[in-house]
């Protein structure tokens, strides 16, 4: 009943898209940082090339997420 009342004020489709976007970021962002942390550990263990690659992947993913965020902020 409450959800039905809410949906008359907040379109359910838009709400679902917002939830989907936040959940996707909640999976990708910490995952990317974890990859970066793994890269730091690998580098400390002497596997410099592998470590740098992992850190690069993590940095690129986070940069893309931030760029999408700023795009959303400016382009609404």
């Amino acid at each position: 009943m409450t959800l039905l009342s809410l949906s008359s004020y907040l379109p359910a489709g838009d709400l679902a898209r917002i939830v989907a976007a936040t959940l996707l970021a909640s999976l990708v962002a910490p995952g990317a940082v974890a990859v970066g942390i793994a890269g730091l550990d690998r580098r400390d263990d002497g596997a410099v090339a592998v470590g740098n690659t992992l850190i690069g992947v993590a940095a690129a993913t986070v940069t893309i997420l931030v760029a999408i965020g700023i795009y959303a902020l400016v382009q609404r």
Partner: protein
Amino acid sequence: MILTVATALVFNFTNGFHDTANAMATTIATEALPPRRAVGLAAVLNLVGAFLSVAVAATIASGIVDQGMITVPVIFAGLIGAIVWNVITWYAGIPSSSSHALVGGVIGSVLVAEGTAGVLWSGLASKVIAPALVAPFVCGLAALVATRVAYRSTRRRSEASVQRGFRVSQILSSSLVALAHGTNDAQKTMGVIVLTLVAGGRLAPGSAVPTWVIVTCAIAVALGTFSGGWRVIRTLGTKVTPIAPPQGFSAETASATTILASSFFGFSLSTTQVVSGGVIGTGLARRGGIVHWLVVRRMVVAWVLTVPAAGLIGASAEEMVAAFSSATTGVIVVAIITAVVLAVVFRIAHRTNVTAENVLDEVEVPTAGEALAPVVVTP
């Protein structure tokens, strides 16, 4: 009109210092940045954010009150309601929505000036109440998921690497929240000033936001942010739940995503409620996590009270202004009374001063190894 514009800038200042916590409370709590540097970064990003967009500057209170009934004294009284409520909740250390305070203040003053016909109740439900019911849960869920992913994906890593990695990343996610706050909240005051100028006949309806309005609003919100609302930072950063760097990162990432996704789809959520939901969500995700529900309950009560309380203060201010034969005299008198009231509150607050130096005095720091076990719920 000059006094109303100045009052709008004071509101923007209080908005800044009240909401510094949104971006930086968890960053300060996890010591990802020292307190002064954190609020300095937030201030700069709020300043930059204010220049990013003015797309919704003209929509403040539209759809909630009848714009045709707005006069300069009504705007002034609404701002007084918002400022006083912001300062009261700051004194109590409660993170409450400055935007909802502004809406409440304006509704209160419109009710006194024009009666119930001046308020669009369905707009209040769709723009304030429904988003307020949804925002903390959406962000809380996202923060809970992010926290679990953060801990699970790093469980084989050394504690030191995990703490360091998430501390650095947290600076980025909280910066995004600060940027979004500057863009969203500075625009609200720009909208108020534009509305004042239009109501006062100094600007044609539909005009672009004047550059001086953008610049002064950006500076006011940045200065407010830099002054640091340490009381609210302490509550959000240390009293709701103990926060470790992976949790701080998760809460801020979830908050930034919720705010940005919702504003992209055209919804204006309260940054405060979103971030609060994120902090609660991340507390619920952690092994042995303690969520202080009494603190949460105080916050929720404040959220429920914000619109009616700011409305009551706004209505009282409007009554007082209207009691004078000249609106200008009324505005000046109410401004003086408000200044005295605020001075008294600040004086009382000074006795139990919370500063950058003692903001973390009561912090509990959990370790990364405490992840993913049942939550302990405390009263």
